[in-house]
């Protein structure tokens, strides 16, 4: 037996491929006879296509096909809702009619011999529109409750209104988060190739099976006839959860021209062709007694969505259980506009909702003249007061203690502007974090070979968190083999089904399936060979031993409230003359169950911190309120953190947490919680530095002067 591998800092098994440029991303597969596609997109937000003049484009060199709604095949668009799709509404249909509902909507597809020819021809397609009035200014749209039972969107515990009125200390403020785009560095890309009625897609996606099912529904073919291959994903952060219209366009182009087609979105198209974190307006009212006991929480929020789908996320969920409070009222609304549908972006819901809640908590601490950590400790619940269930585990107190100690929080002076470094204002702030433990049905196959190696597989995805590596570790650990003897494979619909690679559920779900399949295969091999040693058993058997396993959650959600919890502490330095904020230190402590690989888990956490710095200080897709156009749809004007923005000190603490209830592996997931809490901790630190409370992200220099 080899030593336990779960919990060890193994280097990435796909590391060599990635540092030599040999890892193959969606646009990089060599497919013979490939043609290139480019998309013509609407430049109005609402109306109808009056005319499309394709004559010049069709004459342009190299053009093979030019598809508009006038000549496009009628697509089946059979009903299909994947988990990441909006529950209410119908997905965008492409090139099926003359209706335009948002900026950047695909209105023509060019297929040409080369990329340069396709791009050129797309530029000379002449389009005129019959403009109609468009709702593109979120501030001018009246929010409404989403479709469904009002009780799903407006949730009450106790009497929040009267308790708030009677509270001795009150905070009632509005917080705004602008639209943000995921901006993974790899742009979305699809290569589509038909053979008869069978389609192969090399695609950038967080869920190969969902792409197969969606495209099958769009084209009216069987999902088994669509193979989706996606071994490497160059970042996605939620943008690859859904199957977006460009996948349909690539398949349509290949259908029309009879050759394989490659479609790669441009960086500008990344702001129109896939979803985004929606513009969110939240009002939080907190009432507390003099000793800091929360007596009322009222939290309402609304978010932009499209006219054709109702996007909603768990914006207000955490408010209902993060802090103890007898009187809570949450209300979630949407603002339908002539925009394309938003989608989940890293820590969807929690990142936005907890920004508002934890900012308001900081304001309450100031009003009470109480240390913000003390305020949270005074309101630490002993059970989930919303679900009325015990937590399966909750390490908030340990996270506050560990992070505060590492940070040196006891040295903080409470008064704003009281800490300085020369002429710079220093601020220390903190916030809580939480994200649900998600565990979904998953399958895996383990195959033991006579030479003492193993092949293990599941149609999972790895957009960066290290699925390739962590699954290899779980398999090797379970089989008792060294990592080098186990080959894990993912990212292909021909492999056993995995759930969507999002919501921090991959380790819990796919990891548990891999463990179960390996356990079955090992036990089978040992039993057949009558041996205690797997390598010896396999040699003796001289044949392949295979086992598949399907795992699924039981009734634990009925018995426990299951979440990861964390605390984030931040030091900022603000230049009082220039209004520039630099994050100097971040310390995050997380109670997230078992950590399979501390080395790559740390990468995930510092990555979340960098994402949170972007959210707090930089990120903003600037939408022109007159026409819905994104005015900064590129990486020079949509600012994201660069090397120089990374804090010199980034500290990640995993508090010891054993949770036997969540899933067989005892993991809670890290990808999302790593981002939650960072933006409010920074905003709170900026208040501590400057005495100025900025309630609209990003906190750019102009807002501090």
């Amino acid at each position, binding site marked *: 037996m080899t030593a336990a591998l779960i919990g060890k800092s193994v*280097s990435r098994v*796909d*590391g*060599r*491929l*990635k*540092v*030599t*440029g*040999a*890892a193959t*991303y969606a*646009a*990089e597969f*060599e497919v013979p006879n490939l043609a290139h596609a480019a998309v013509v997109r609407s430049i109005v937000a609402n109306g109808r296509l009056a005319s499309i003049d394709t004559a010049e484009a069709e004459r*342009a*060199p*190299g053009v093979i096909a030019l598809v508009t709604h006038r000549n496009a095949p009628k697509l089946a668009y059979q009903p299909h809702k994947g988990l990441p799709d909006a529950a209410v509404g119908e997905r965008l249909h492409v090139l099926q009619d003359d209706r335009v509902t948002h900026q950047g909507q695909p209105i023509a597809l060019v297929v040409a011999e*080369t*990329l*340069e*020819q396709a791009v*050129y021809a797309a530029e000379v397609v002449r389009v005129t529109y019959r403009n109609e009035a468009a709702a593109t200014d979120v501030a001018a749209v009246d929010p409404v409750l989403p479709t469904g039972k009002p009780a799903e969107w407006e949730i009450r515990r106790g009497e929040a209104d009267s308790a708030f009125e009677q509270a001795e200390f009150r905070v009632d403020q509005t917080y705004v988060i602008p639209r943000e785009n995921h901006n*993974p*560095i790899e*742009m979305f890309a699809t290569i589509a190739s038909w053979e008869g009625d069978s389609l192969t897609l090399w695609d950038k996606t967080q869920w190969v099976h969902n792409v197969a099912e969606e495209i099958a529904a769009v084209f009216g073919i069987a999902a088994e006839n669509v193979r989706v291959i996606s071994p*490497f*994903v*160059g*970042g*996605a952060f939620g943008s690859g959860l859904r199957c977006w219209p460009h996948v349909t366009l690539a398949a349509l182009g290949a259908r029309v021209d009879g050759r394989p087609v490659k479609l*790669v979105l*441009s*960086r500008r198209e990344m702001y129109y062709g896939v979803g985004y974190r929606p513009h969110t307006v939240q009002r939080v009212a907190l009432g507390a007694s003099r000793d800091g006991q929360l007596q009322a929480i009222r939290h309402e929020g609304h978010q932009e969505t499209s006219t054709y789908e109702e996007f909603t996320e768990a914006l207000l969920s955490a408010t209902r259980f993060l802090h103890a409070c007898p009187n809570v009222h949450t209300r979630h609304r949407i603002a339908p506009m002539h925009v394309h549908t938003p989608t989940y972006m890293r820590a969807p819901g929690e990142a936005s909702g907890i920004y508002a809640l934890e900012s308001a908590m900081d304001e309450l601490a100031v009003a009470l003249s109480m240390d913000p950590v003390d305020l949270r400790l005074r309101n630490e619940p002993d059970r989930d007061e919303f679900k009325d269930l015990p937590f399966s585990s909750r390490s908030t107190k340990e996270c506050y203690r560990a992070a505060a100690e590492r940070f040196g929080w006891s040295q903080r002076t409470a008064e704003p502007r009281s800490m300085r470094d020369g002429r710079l204002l220093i601020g220390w702030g903190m916030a809580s974090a939480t994200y649900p433990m998600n565990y979904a049905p998953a399958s895996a196959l383990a195959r033991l070979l006579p030479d003492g190696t193993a092949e293990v597989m599941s149609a999972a995805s790895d*957009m*960066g*968190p*290290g699925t390739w590596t962590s699954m290899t570790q779980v398999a090797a650990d379970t089989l008792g083999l060294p990592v080098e003897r186990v080959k894990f494979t993912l990212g292909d619909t021909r492999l056993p089904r995995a759930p969507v690679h999002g919501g921090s559920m991959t380790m819990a779900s796919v990891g548990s399936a891999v463990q179960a399949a390996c356990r079955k295969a090992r036990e089978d091999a040992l039993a057949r060979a009558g041996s205690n040693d797997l390598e010896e058993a396999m040699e003796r058997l001289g044949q392949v031993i295979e086992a598949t396993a399907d795992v699924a959650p039981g009734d634990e959600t009925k018995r426990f409230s299951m979440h990861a919890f964390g605390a984030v502490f931040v030091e900022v330095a603000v230049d009082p003359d220039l209004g520039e904020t630099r994050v100097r230190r971040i310390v995050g402590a997380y109670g997230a169950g078992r950590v399979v690989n501390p080395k*790559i888990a*740390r*990468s*995930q956490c*510092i*990555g*979340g*911190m*960098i*994402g949170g710095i972007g959210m707090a200080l930089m990120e903003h897709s600037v939408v022109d309120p007159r026409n819905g156009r994104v005015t900064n749809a*590129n*990486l*020079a004007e949509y600012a*994201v*953190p*660069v*090397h*120089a*923005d*990374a804090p*010199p000190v*980034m500290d990640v603490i995993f508090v010891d947490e054993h949770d036997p209830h969540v899933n067989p592996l005892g993991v809670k997931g890290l990808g999302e919680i790593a981002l939650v809490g960072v933006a409010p901790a920074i905003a709170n630190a900026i208040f501590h530095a400057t005495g100025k409370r900025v309630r609209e992200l990003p906190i750019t220099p102009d807002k501090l002067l």
Partner: protein
Amino acid sequence: MPGAISPALAQAAGAAPALLDVSLRINGTEHRLSLDPRTTLLDALREHLHLTGSKKGCGLGQCGACTVLMDGMRVKACLSLAALAQGREIKTIEGLAQGDELHPLQASFIERDAFQCGYCTSGQIMAGVACISEGHAGSPQDIREWMSGNLCRCGAYDHIVAAIQDAAAVSSSTQGG
């Protein structure tokens, strides 16, 4: 002849830009290509030579994922026209390792876990190699400043800086004998 327009193709393309015969020296090997003059060096590498290690993240010179070395200097391949790269010595990520032996920076990227998704990694490594040879890897602050043209959306900056420091130390110890 390098740079010459092929008359037959020019005629066939009508008003279109005629194809150019371009000779590119990449990782020590000469490649002869017939290219649309609009072809960038990055697209020549990725679409014509299947050297897909150099990544396209924006096509606008804003993300650095396409960074390659041209005569030892780091350049953004997406802003360089392939035809103008003729006669230059181009090194891409595929040419960095010596056979099976990784370049010290490639090895330290793995050791330090200096990436997640891996998509910006080629550009980070090529820029990092240049950053070290330029003498801009003397301190973490220096590295942060001189690597800021290479975006990493997964946020691996802390580990990239550590990896470059490690490789810079190897490089200075070998240079120092």
